[in-house]
């Protein structure tokens, strides 16, 4: 078909893919095959996929095609090829969380987010590479090797959802799922030049998400447009009886909200996000976005988030403490890897964990165990939770006067592979503009807003109020229109 050849997979939006399938211009099977061919051709170099689910994808695509032929109402993701970060369980498909300790694990159930995507007609192509247990900002902590940034192969794609961002950027799937604990969706989206959305804590079920830090972990989409990300969010959002932290807050019609435009919205600009350390080209790009919003009828307001500089230290206490507890379940008894060197039970536990976990995961387990250990709990863990209250209060106060906040996502564009691996603290500082929203629990997103003189993507961050993804998406779509104009 001529139309199939004309379709550029790197630019294909979800809306275009779905309408091509629904209108019969391309079959879901052909669309899946084209993507699998492209993966075979280019992913050897990028390494975004850890496993392909060819049979499952083609079976689902055939089902979608049959439904279209039979004139049944197609789902909102009918025939849309997607990839899933490997921290989300997929029934019968190896799920490793980027760790050796889960090698060979085939979960007996699907994560709710994955099940809802498939129920909406999405075609799951495979599992996407990530930092081990989502711990990292560069995807260099994967036990299965790093992912390369498709926009510059000598650079990192960001992390921890590096594979999810890279696969969408490289045209290997139309949308993907990632997870964000301290910036793991927004930062790789910025580094790879795609849209990445962090929903409010509780908006999307985490059932089937392999836990890193339970009070912070969230599931969210990557896509090539704000509208596409909104569509995927709309499919996943809403309560789930398998996750007691999922919320019953009503889910808006995001597509309708986006159409409202941005005129009259009050945009907050936090001075703390434009200080020392911010790359000049990123600063200029964000300032130009803000000018554009003003031209579109938004009013700009200075806001203060005075505890911003304490967010990274508070995060690395809270997140590692929760991780040390969550990761105690990996002991070589019930699933995944077991050492060959374990004559007694405790010896087996210890050797399994030593051989199964990578250096960064061990570092965080040790730090988390340390801050929770006798005599240190109040000094570290309780203190960090108190600072977390202050950070959340900062946002509540700022949002009393504005509808959304606009800021940079990252202090620098994508850095080189190997550049920060020897110094964990430098890597943690990558999260400086993203962890506050993670700790507070508000929603946020990264939208592409141009590139550096060296051709590296720049992202702008939009932060929204609790459960107000609708307004955040309106602003995100407004920014995107400016970029395309």
């Amino acid at each position, binding site marked *: 078909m001529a139309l199939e050849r004309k379709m550029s997979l790197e630019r294909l939006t979800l809306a275009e893919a779905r309408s091509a399938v629904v209108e019969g211009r391309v079959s879901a099977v052909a669309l899946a095959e084209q993507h699998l061919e492209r993966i075979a051709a280019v992913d050897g170099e990028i390494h975004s996929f850890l496993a392909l689910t060819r049979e499952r994808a083609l079976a689902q695509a055939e089902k979608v095609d049959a439904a279209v032929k039979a004139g049944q109402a197609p789902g909102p993701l009918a025939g849309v090829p997607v990839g899933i970060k490997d921290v989300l369980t997929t029934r019968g498909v190896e799920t490793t969380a980027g760790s050796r300790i889960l090698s060979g694990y085939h979960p007996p159930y699907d994560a709710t987010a994955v099940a809802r995507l498939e129920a909406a007609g999405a075609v799951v192509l495979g599992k996407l590479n990530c930092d081990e247990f989502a711990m990292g900002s560069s995807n260099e902590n994967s036990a299965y090797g790093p992912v390369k940034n498709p926009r510059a192969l000598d650079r990192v794609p960001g992390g921890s959802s590096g594979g999810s961002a890279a696969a969408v950027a490289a045209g290997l799937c139309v949308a993907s799922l990632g997870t964000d604990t301290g910036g793991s969706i927004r930062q790789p989206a910025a580094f790879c030049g795609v849209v990445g959305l962090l929903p409010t804590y509780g908006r999307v079920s985490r059932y089937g998400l392999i836990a890193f830090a339970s*009070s912070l972990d969230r599931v969210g989409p990557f896509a090539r447009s704000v509208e596409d990300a909104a569509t995927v969010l709309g499919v996943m959002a809403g309560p789930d009886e398998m996750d007691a*932290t999922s919320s019953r807050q009503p889910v808006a019609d995001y597509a309708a909200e986006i159409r409202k435009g941005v005129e009259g919205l009050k945009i907050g600009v936090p001075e703390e996000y434009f200080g020392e350390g911010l790359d000049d080209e990123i600063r200029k790009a964000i300032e130009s976005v803000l000018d554009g919003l003003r031209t579109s009828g938004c009013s700009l307001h200075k806001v203060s988030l005075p505890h911003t500089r304490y967010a990274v230290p508070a995060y690395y206490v809270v997140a590692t403490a929760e991780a040390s507890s969550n990761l105690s379940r990996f002991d070589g*008894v019930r699933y995944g890897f*077991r050492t060959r060197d374990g004559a007694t039970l405790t010896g087996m536990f210890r050797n399994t964990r030593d051989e199964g976990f990578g250096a960064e995961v*061990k570092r965080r387990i040790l730090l988390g165990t340390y801050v929770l250990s006798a005599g240190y709990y109040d000094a570290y863990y309780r203190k960090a939770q108190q600072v977390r*209250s*202050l950070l959340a209060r900062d946002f509540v106060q700022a949002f009393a006067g504005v509808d959304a906040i606009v800021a940079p996502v990252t202090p620098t564009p994508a850095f080189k592979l190997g550049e920060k691996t020897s110094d964990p*603290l430098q890597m943690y500082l990558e999260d400086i503009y993203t962890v506050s929203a993670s700790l*507070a629990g508000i929603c946020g997103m990264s939208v592409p807003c141009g590139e550096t003189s060296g051709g590296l993507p720049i992202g702008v961050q939009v932060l929204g109020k609790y459960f107000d993804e609708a307004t955040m998406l309106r602003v995100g779509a407004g920014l995107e229109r400016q970029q395309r104009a």
Partner: protein
Amino acid sequence: MSVSVEDVRHVADLANLELTAEELPRMAKDLNAVLGYIAQLNELDTSTVEPMAQVGEVLGLEPAQNGETLRADAVRASLERDAVMAEAPETDGRFFKVPRVLER
């Protein structure tokens, strides 16, 4: 406050991690760097601030709205035993098998 190699060994014991002789000093160095950075939290007076453990606490919402999506307390089917046991490194099909518990 400085973390010694002995401290790392103790914490590793608590976490059931067996660290090699090379890993111990490197982890001590890394932990000291990160804990030194974390120490800046002490600049803040938080004596009157409540700790925040969950996001719902900020919202002050009723639990039913805020998220605690509790389902009815009724018996229902769970995962298939065969599918679960098939993932275990060692099993007799009914139980997980592990090395002996007591050291002789």
